[in-house]
């Protein structure tokens, strides 16, 4: 009886709140959090989301094992509970506990010194995608007030579907996950959703139960393959060849949706045969536009491509040339269509030829074409493709497959990758100079007016395009900078990027030459900050973890960047690898100890709220509290030290003594809850959340569905209307409303006639072998998110650790292991010319020959010598992504920019001499 009661007591509570886990898993799982005596007792999935569309399964229950064990981390051994200051060498593990006041004064003085002596751009923050909106907003606000630089998170983490951007002019193109239920074919391509999308995976099995064919395309037989009807093993990095080969079969067999291709894509556009550039108005008319393009219509001959609509009206564009066109200078030129060029290219990708590249049999390629043709097909992609050096080519090829088969803008179609929704209130908040609805209306009216002004200049532009233009304009006044320049000038990447042996062999000059050329042409004007001459002095990692995440590892970070920095500040919930190497570590409150909202995304189109269930552990504070206090301390110390005025990087005069007051807008926003409430009310007012929504609504319901995608670029790029009773299908504006794409040609663009792309023979999608990044070694190292942690956040969770071996492991194929005499549990060294790490081997027949897998999330300090798997990643970026000012290829925050690759680096593997089996040594 006593035992029974003890058990019951374990599951008793005196308070219930809503919680979610604001992590970069981008799931919006609402949990009920049960507390007892001021401690979280347990949590369970909420499961209260209403059905959206009749006949489509609802989202419930949403959750995974990491979320269900989150509360264990509140008392985790890696929690930081007090401000710490380093007393030994960086990374020596020697710390002293200090008061908050001491910590803040120390940091404030460093910031003031840096601003006074070198300027505010010597203060650098890494933008974060971990911790939810209330983790990132505070430091972005402070950075803005002091004129610091924030490194664009996309350029740090690289979840950028860059091939989608090249094709569609945007990178956030995802429907809600329940749209998968409408699919007839689901291609799990560059994705392992059984690991990475646990809350949503049921839609795949439910679609399959309904009759959809599920096909997994992956190098390894991953956990998702078990639930697939067909597994297509592809060599790492050869996905473009496979996609193009399917396209070749579709075209050859006449199984192409011609009407869709004509209406939606640039395939009917004319290309000059002499210079292989699009036929432009300036070719036909003296002084004509560079951005007006042409079709060939059988009756009207050369017809300008409509720029304001995809509706062709009476135009019936030819898909095949050649034709003769008279030019402005009186000469005549032969023109082809883009499709002509594609078909020519696809001759290199017949199933037989492609099979030699990608390893998939010709029969399987033909079968795939047969399955996809005429069926509603969706690619569930994830963020793996962009992490390949030539991931853009892979995605462009995959998008071409969707184009030829008419697979976007209709329920059950499209490509499921990055999925940003718009929480307008969050975006408005940074512009607010006072609290309340009047200011909100003033800002929204101002945005309307700006959009109208832009529309006057470009009457054919859609709201989506104007939103992009507005965002582009705002970058000149913002803090965000693509990290590629910081990495090139101040971190240890320059040497790697100029290493021709590791680079793409078709580059005609050094990376530095391309970089200098891009800067000289002004393609990155205003955002290439901090400049080469501005050495960073103060560096903030707020929930970010460059020591683990940064491709390049210690060589890039510790050896090059760290020595330049006078002050490294880590703000985190736990002792990350970066915190271990920091100068000052500040303890942050965790979810359940604070209020927060998860990032707004379209996967569920729900905003999830996390309430404060218990007090923060130890002296932990929320980021809002931390940076508010720091802002006040900067003001206080600036007055004490008589350093109150400074000039920012844009030569604007600013003051430090008002930073504290400005941070809270004169004290209007003292608490996290007041900030979130303002976001929610403003979002409601702007129409992205239901009318009357406030924090209290979320506190009651836990989660709430968006009613709109907002007035800003991220939401608009999904290009669809939110309907109460329908799943969200991206790109319906393009297909149903015939609104053009925000690309140079206003259509889904497969031909990029930029000189750099043409020189690289990448004007059209193609396959290119992965460069030998790291040297010439027999294995390629791939990765992916593990089932057990969201990046490294759950790595210290005792429950999660107990489900696996809790130490870094490399998975290798059985035959390779046999050939190299490497057994299960062997300590191995994985190495290349860039670096090495030691881990334990897990032998698995599911891994293909010459492939090694190390899943994402292991902290470097879990490895011997604290050498993480990023030691073998040179962090190469693709030079073509330095292109700017070509139609849609221009910088957008969180969008188009060079991003680091890490998939399929070349490595060797060997048993560590004199090694013992891990089990024995431990």
């Amino acid at each position: 009886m006593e035992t029974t009661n003890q058990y019951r007591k374990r599951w008793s509570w005196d308070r219930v709140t809503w919680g979610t886990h604001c992590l970069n898993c981008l799931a919006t799982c609402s949990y009920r959090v049960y507390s007892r005596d001021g401690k979280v007792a347990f949590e369970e999935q909420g499961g209260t989301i209403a059905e959206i569309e009749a006949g489509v399964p609802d989202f419930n229950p949403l959750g995974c094992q990491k979320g269900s064990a989150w509360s264990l981390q509140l008392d985790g051994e890696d929690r930081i509970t007090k401000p710490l200051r380093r007393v030994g060498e960086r990374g020596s593990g020697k710390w002293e506990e200090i008061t908050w006041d001491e910590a803040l004064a120390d940091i404030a003085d460093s910031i003031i010194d840096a601003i006074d002596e070198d300027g505010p751009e010597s203060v650098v923050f890494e933008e974060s995608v971990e911790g939810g909106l209330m983790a990132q907003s505070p430091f972005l606000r402070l950075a803005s007030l002091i004129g610091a630089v924030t490194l664009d998170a996309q350029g740090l983490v690289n979840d950028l579907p860059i091939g989608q951007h090249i094709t569609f002019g945007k990178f956030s193109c995802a429907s809600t996950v329940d749209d998968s239920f409408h699919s007839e074919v689901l291609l799990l391509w560059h994705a392992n959703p059984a690991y990475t999308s646990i809350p949503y995976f049921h839609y795949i099995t439910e679609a399959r139960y309904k009759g959809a064919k599920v096909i997994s395309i992956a190098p390894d037989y991953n956990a998702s393959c078990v639930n697939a009807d067909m597994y297509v093993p592809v060599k790492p990095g050869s996905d473009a060849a496979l996609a193009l080969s399917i396209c070749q079969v579709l075209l050859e067999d006449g199984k192409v949706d011609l009407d869709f291709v004509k209406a939606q894509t640039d395939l009917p556009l004319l290309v000059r045969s002499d210079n292989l550039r699009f036929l432009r108005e300036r070719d036909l008319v003296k002084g004509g536009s560079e951005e007006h393009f042409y079709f060939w219509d059988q009756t009207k001959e050369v017809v300008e491509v409509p720029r304001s609509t995809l509706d062709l009206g009476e135009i019936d564009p030819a898909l095949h040339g050649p034709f003769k066109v008279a030019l402005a200078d009186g000469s005549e030129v032969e023109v082809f269509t883009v499709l002509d060029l594609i078909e020519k290219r696809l001759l290199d990708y017949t199933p037989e030829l492609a099979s030699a590249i990608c390893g998939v049999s010709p029969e399987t390629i033909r079968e795939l074409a047969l399955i996809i043709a005429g069926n509603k097909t969706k690619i569930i992609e994830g963020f793996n493709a962009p992490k390949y050096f030539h991931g853009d080519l892979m995605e462009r090829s995959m998008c071409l497959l969707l184009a030829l088969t008419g697979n976007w803008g209709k329920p059950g179609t499209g490509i499921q990758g990055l999925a940003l929704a718009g929480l307008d209130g969050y975006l408005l908040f940074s512009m607010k100079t006072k609290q309340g609805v009047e200011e909100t209306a003033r800002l929204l009216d101002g945005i309307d007016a700006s959009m109208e002004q832009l529309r006057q200049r470009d009457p054919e532009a859609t709201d989506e395009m104007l939103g992009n233009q507005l965002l582009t304009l705002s970058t000149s006044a913002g803090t965000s900078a693509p990290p590629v320049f910081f990495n090139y000038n101040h971190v240890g990447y320059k040497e790697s990027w100029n290493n021709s042996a590791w680079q793409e062999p078709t580059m005609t000059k050094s990376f530095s030459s391309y970089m200098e050329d891009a800067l000289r042409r002004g393609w990155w004007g205003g955002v290439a900050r901090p400049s080469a001459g501005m050495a960073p002095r103060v560096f903030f990692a707020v929930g970010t973890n460059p020591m683990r995440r940064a491709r390049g590892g210690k060589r890039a970070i510790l050896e090059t960047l760290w020595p330049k920095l006078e002050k490294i500040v880590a703000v985190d919930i736990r002792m990350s690898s970066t915190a271990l190497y920091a100068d000052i570590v500040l303890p942050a409150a965790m979810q359940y100890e604070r209020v927060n909202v998860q990032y707004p995304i379209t996967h569920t189109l729900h905003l999830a709220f996390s309430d404060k269930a218990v007090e923060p552990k130890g002296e932990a504070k929320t980021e809002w509290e931390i940076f508010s206090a720091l802002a006040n301390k900067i003001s206080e110390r600036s007055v004490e030290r008589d350093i109150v005025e400074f000039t920012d990087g844009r030569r604007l005069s600013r003051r430090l003594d008002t930073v504290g007051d400005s941070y809270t807008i004169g004290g209007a926003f003292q608490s996290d809850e007041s900030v979130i409430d303002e976001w929610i009310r403003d979002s409601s007012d702007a129409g992205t959340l239901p009318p009357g929504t406030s924090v209290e609504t979320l506190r009651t319901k836990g989660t709430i569905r968006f009613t709109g995608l907002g007035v800003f670029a991220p939401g608009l790029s999904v290009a669809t209307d939110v309907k109460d009773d329908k799943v969200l299908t991206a790109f319906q504006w393009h297909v149903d409303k015939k609104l053009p794409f925000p690309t140079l040609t206003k259509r889904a663009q497969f031909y990029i006639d930029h000189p750099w792309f043409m020189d690289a023979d990448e004007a059209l999608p193609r396959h290119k072998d992965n460069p030998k990044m790291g040297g010439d070694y027999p294995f390629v190292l791939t990765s992916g998110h593990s089932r057990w942690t969201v990046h490294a956040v759950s790595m210290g969770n005792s429950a999660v650790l107990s489900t696996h071996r809790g130490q870094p492991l490399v998975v290798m194929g059985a035959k390779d292991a046999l050939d190299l005499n490497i057994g299960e549990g062997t300590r191995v060294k994985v190495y290349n010319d860039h670096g090495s790490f030691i881990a334990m081997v897990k032998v698995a027949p599911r891994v293909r020959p010459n492939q090694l897998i190390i899943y994402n999330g292991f902290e470097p300090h879990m490895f011997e010598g604290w050498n993480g798997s990023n030691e073998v990643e040179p962090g190469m970026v693709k030079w073509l992504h330095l292109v700017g000012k070509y139609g849609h290829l221009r910088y957008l925050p969180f969008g188009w920019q060079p991003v680091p690759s890490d998939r399929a680096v070349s490595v060797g593997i060997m048993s560590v001499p004199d090694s013992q089996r891990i089990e024995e040594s431990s």
Partner: protein
Amino acid sequence: MFTFSLSGLEIKASDSGPIEVEENETTARSAVYMVLGSFFAPPGDSHFDKAVNDHWEKEMTEAASLLPFEFDTGHPTIDEATSKEAYIGEYDRLFSSGDRLNLLVASQYSSDPENLMAQVKRDYEYFGLGGSESSERPIDHLASECDFLQYLCFKEAASPSPRLAGSYRRAQRDFLERHLISWVPDIVAKVTPLNPIKPYDWALSRLNDFIQADYAYIKALLGG
């Protein structure tokens, strides 16, 4: 011309909007909330005088003249025998006498009064208001909530921006829904058995009828 008048609340944010507007259907609604707010504020000398001189009825009738919906303003005639002391004592008897808590305060009807107060405060702050420093009246007092609605209606009528006018209009619906519609019927249910003297019975029934009619009106205006 119509202008607003706050007692328990005051403007906290700088406000550059007009301070008076032409009378219309929206200002009529604002005016009715002004009368109701004034009536349910703790009574002073003028409260009794207004009752004796039928000014409550006049104010209400005048306020309601341009209302966009039917509303019976009724007749709050006070019994001639009612003394000033009895009149003022009735307010306490009905709403806060003896060990009874103040029935005119929203938090009395909430299971989480602290949170409710925080939400009301934020509601006011978002629309530029806060509790008056010269008033001891709680911000969740019925009179303050009527003041708030009075202000929202006025601001709707006065807003130069259609977007902002829409915001104020939605706010009226939301606040009615979350507050007065949810707890005023409870006041009526608790106070009616106490047989309130005139004009308290009149005021309670007018309050209840008005908020129901206004809520229906504003909901219909906003499309449900």
